[in-house]
């Protein structure tokens, strides 16, 4: 039996980047911390929303739809921060990682979810980018603001901004 009386240490990860490499680092650290018995909370804001978006077109206004078009796709469409080359880099890294048997972003995210990592989306960036709650994956625990993030960070052993 697990002893649940012991209070778990916390970790907070704020994800502002939608880059493949940074999302990869964020989900790896979240998974590692959860495996080390930590209570992990991730906050996704701005470009980071890609990390928890469903594969669907977003936006209502002209600009919103433009952003939705340029930022279309889910986590599997994230491009690396270097070697973008209009999608070539994503393809190349995907192949290199598959060859080396490294898990992909969506598998890593699923592992994090399975290990109990909590994921919140930033309400303001959702408003600005016109992304609706139903356009995010169902595993998202909720929509939150900076106050919850600050509260979590205050009680955390470490907080990261990626």
């Amino acid at each position: 039996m697990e002893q649940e009386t012991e209070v778990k240490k916390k970790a907070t990860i704020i994800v502002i980047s939608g880059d493949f490499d940074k999302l990869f680092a964020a989900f790896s650290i979240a998974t590692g911390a959860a495996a080390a018995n930590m209570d992990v909370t991730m906050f996704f804001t701005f470009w980071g929303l890609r990390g928890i978006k469903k594969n669907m077109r977003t936006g209502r206004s002209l600009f919103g739809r433009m952003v939705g078009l340029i930022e279309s796709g889910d986590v599997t469409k994230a491009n690396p921060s270097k070697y973008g080359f209009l999608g070539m880099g994503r393809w190349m890294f995907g192949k290199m990682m598959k060859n080396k048997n490294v898990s992909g972003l969506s598998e890593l995210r699923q592992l994090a979810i399975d290990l109990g990592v909590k994921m919140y989306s930033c309400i303001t960036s959702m408003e600005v980018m016109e992304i609706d709650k139903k356009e995010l994956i169902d595993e998202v625990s909720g929509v939150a603001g900076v106050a919850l993030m600050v509260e979590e960070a205050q009680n955390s052993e470490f907080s990261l901004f990626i």
Partner: protein
Amino acid sequence: MAENIKVDLELDLRGLLCPLPMVRVSQNIAKVPVGGIIKAVATDPGSLADIPSWARTTGNEVVKTERADKDITFFVKRLK
């Protein structure tokens, strides 16, 4: 030799890379009784640092590590 360590669960983690070997050990540790041993075979050199570190932070113990060729074998004891 290693044969006198009683193993409760064997994990084949060959080919997996960070953070998976450590995560797989953590997902399986509750399957052995307290005092029980997981024998985990990995090939990721990163696991040499990761699995002992995971054990320290979770209060478990790597009682023995063996290397043969590319295989790195950990004997992890569940302490609580």
